[in-house]
């Protein structure tokens, strides 16, 4: 066939597939789920009063009080009888009170100053005896460093600490900060049956005027197109916030771990997240295709994918052992938070490493799928 004709054919197939997809209930349901998620998040932020500094600091105060509940009340002055950790915690409590006061009377400079002081105090506490007993109530080392860098950036840039969390960019920053935890699960549930019909009734596709490989490509592209629409929907559903709460600050700092603790602007953070989401979606779709081929069962496919997703939680030691495993990066929020650094066996998983790993795996999977379809195995399916 002429290359030109082939192109027309491909386009037609894609058109047909898209037409089928358009009336697919699953797509409508997925869109509704995304809309509900976004609006649910908005109401969650409202009811939980996210961005209310007094509330956040009160939570901190309470945590330190819980930690102090494990200590006998003693003299916490410089030369007192209390242990170093005890004195440190009492000072933390005092600094948090100052922070809370600064938030209440609107003294942003004092707030930032005390925040940095608190970060220093906490940094010192990690090395003290008995820290493990109270670690549960205090931020981890990485969390503390992230906070520190964030406050430092605010001081350097002269930005205000209080932002409306429901302004457009701030909301998106928050949304993309947590969506990484569920994105792979969402796409794998969405795509788990992508080719199951075709594998179960091979005669169905033998009637198509193009090769099966092309058909798979068309299916894959239409699924990716849907994923694109889902991501777009996240933005579209957040648009009303511009009207109600304004655009917000697109260059507001977000502290992330990307191999080192550093600061991204909100817009860069959103960009990197979207890139991750696209790659993870492609990864999930290709994985679905391969598992569909191997297992010939939609539910097993879904279950295996979900199990793969939680395997790093079940075997955290494996992450440090095999850092190049793409599964480690599927929950990318966790990578951005640097959470893996605080595990019993710390694993330094970089943001860029994840992109490369998932990218390489996508290429490998494409080759596997291509090899499978050109080897003529399909006839025997």
């Amino acid at each position, binding site marked *: 066939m002429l290359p030109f004709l082939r192109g027309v054919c491909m386009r037609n197939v894609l058109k047909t597939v898209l037409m089928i997809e358009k009336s697919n209930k699953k797509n409508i349901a997925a869109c509704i789920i995304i809309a509900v998620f976004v609006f649910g998040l908005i109401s969650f932020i409202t009811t939980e009063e996210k961005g209310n500094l007094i*509330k956040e600091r009160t939570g901190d105060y309470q945590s330190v009080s*819980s930690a102090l509940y*494990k*200590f006998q*009340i003693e003299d916490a002055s410089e030369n007192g009888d209390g242990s170093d950790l005890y004195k440190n915690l009492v000072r933390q409590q005092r600094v948090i009170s100052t922070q809370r006061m600064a938030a209440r009377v609107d003294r942003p400079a004092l707030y930032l100053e005390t925040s940095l002081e608190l970060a220093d105090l906490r940094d010192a506490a990690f090395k003290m005896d008995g820290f493990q*007993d109270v670690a549960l109530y205090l931020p981890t080392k990485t969390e503390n460093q992230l906070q520190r860098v964030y406050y430092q950036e605010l001081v350097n840039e002269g930005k205000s600490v209080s932002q409306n969390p429901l302004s457009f960019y701030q909301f998106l920053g928050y949304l993309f900060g947590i969506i990484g935890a569920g994105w792979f699960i969402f796409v794998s549930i969405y795509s788990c*049956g992508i080719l199951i019909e075709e594998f179960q009734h091979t005669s169905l596709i033998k009637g198509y005027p193009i090769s099966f490989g092309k058909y798979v490509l068309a299916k894959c592209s239409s699924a990716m197109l849907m994923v694109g629409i889902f991501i777009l929907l996240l933005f579209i559903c957040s648009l009303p916030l511009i009207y109600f709460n304004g655009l917000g600050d697109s260059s507001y700092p977000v502290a992330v771990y990307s191999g080192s603790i550093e600061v991204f602007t909100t817009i860069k953070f959103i960009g990197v997240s979207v890139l991750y989401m696209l790659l993870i979606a492609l990864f999930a779709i290709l994985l679905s295709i391969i598992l569909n081929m191997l297992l010939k069962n939609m539910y097993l496919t*879904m279950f295996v994918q979900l199990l793969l997703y*939680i395997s790093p939680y079940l075997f955290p030691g494996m992450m440090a052992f095999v850092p190049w495993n793409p599964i480690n990066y599927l929950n990318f929020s966790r990578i951005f938070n640097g959470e893996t650094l605080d595990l019993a066996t710390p694993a330094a998983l970089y943001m860029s490493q994840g992109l490369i790993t998932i990218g390489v795996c996508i290429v490998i999977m494409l080759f596997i799928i291509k090899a499978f379809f050109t080897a003529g195995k399909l006839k025997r399916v």
Partner: protein
Amino acid sequence: MQSYFKFEFLHFFFNKKNIAVYVILLFFSCYYAMVVAPSYDPIEKVDKLEMEARYLTREDFLNSVNTERMHPSTAYAVMTYPEWNEYEKGRLDALEEHDFKKYAEATSKWYTYSDGMIYKGGDFLFYHPRYYTYGNNYAREDGHFAYLSAASRYEGYAEGDYALSIDVFEERTALQTWQRLLQSYLPFILIVSCILLSADIVLKDRRNPTLLRGFPMSPWRRLLVKGGVALFGSILAFIPLAAGLLIIGARNGFGSLDLPVPIYSHVDKSFSLISLSEFMLQNMALIILWFVLIISLLLLTSILIRNEFANLFIGFAVVIGEFTYYTRGIGFIREVQWYPTSYIQVGQVISGYRNYVYESNALTLGNGATVLSACVCIILLTVFIISNLPKFKQL
């Protein structure tokens, strides 16, 4: 009828969406058991450091206090600390000797005494700091409930003959985890699964209407069979959830069905104990009643509105209905016990916690069963009437 039941049954269990719901439930129960359950951190735990800190602080105070010309609150402390510390010492010693029965006894006394001191003691004594979260105006009430509940629970442990362990004390064993979850979000998960499983049970027929003409049955009977199948399917949702239970059991032990569960009675403001098996049975009864209610409601909306998404919407509206009117203490002025949605948190209704937060004494298993069954009867009657209208003969 039987053959139609079989037909519907097979349809139900080979429905892609339904199998997906079961698989997702299985996954989440495993995930919960392996990742979430181990990080459970109760406020009232067996924490030696906390006990020691309280004990030593009070002991130091008693040893160094000057008893001449005391401030009234100092005098109060001097009067109350010795007994308080006696119980605390009892707990510490029992823990040291691994004598769990003795620990339970001392702990029960400690909780009763502490609550008596703190709740009536005015504003200078406090419950555990973790109750005092931001904006919680009821921290004192929460602490009061938790302390009294713990006191009653430990009293049960001390009196009965159970295989005690720290996991039992902290309610980490499989059966106790199940009991805790029934008092938090497990009822929601079960009812939402029921909605997802039965949303299309009637509407799927529209795809192949001719298939059904072969069954010589009235629409009403057909709907009943469908409802029965959906109920059976919803009850089967317990099976994938039980997988998580097995994993927790293998880790922390299964616990025993005889373990005591404290039940709050708002009438005499006190706790009584029932066995875990009784608690479970009461919960199951109410949950199954909820299933019946939800399924009959979905049957009604299916024949009225004829849209799956409308079914889902109405189902979820029922699930979150309580949030629209829930405020603490509202039961004092409003008759919340007549709203079926007040019973959605099944475990909390049975343990009496709902009565406590609503300040009502009418949210009981009996009232719940009456209200829910009345709703079921009304809905089914409507379905019966509608399905017998000539217009609806063809579903």
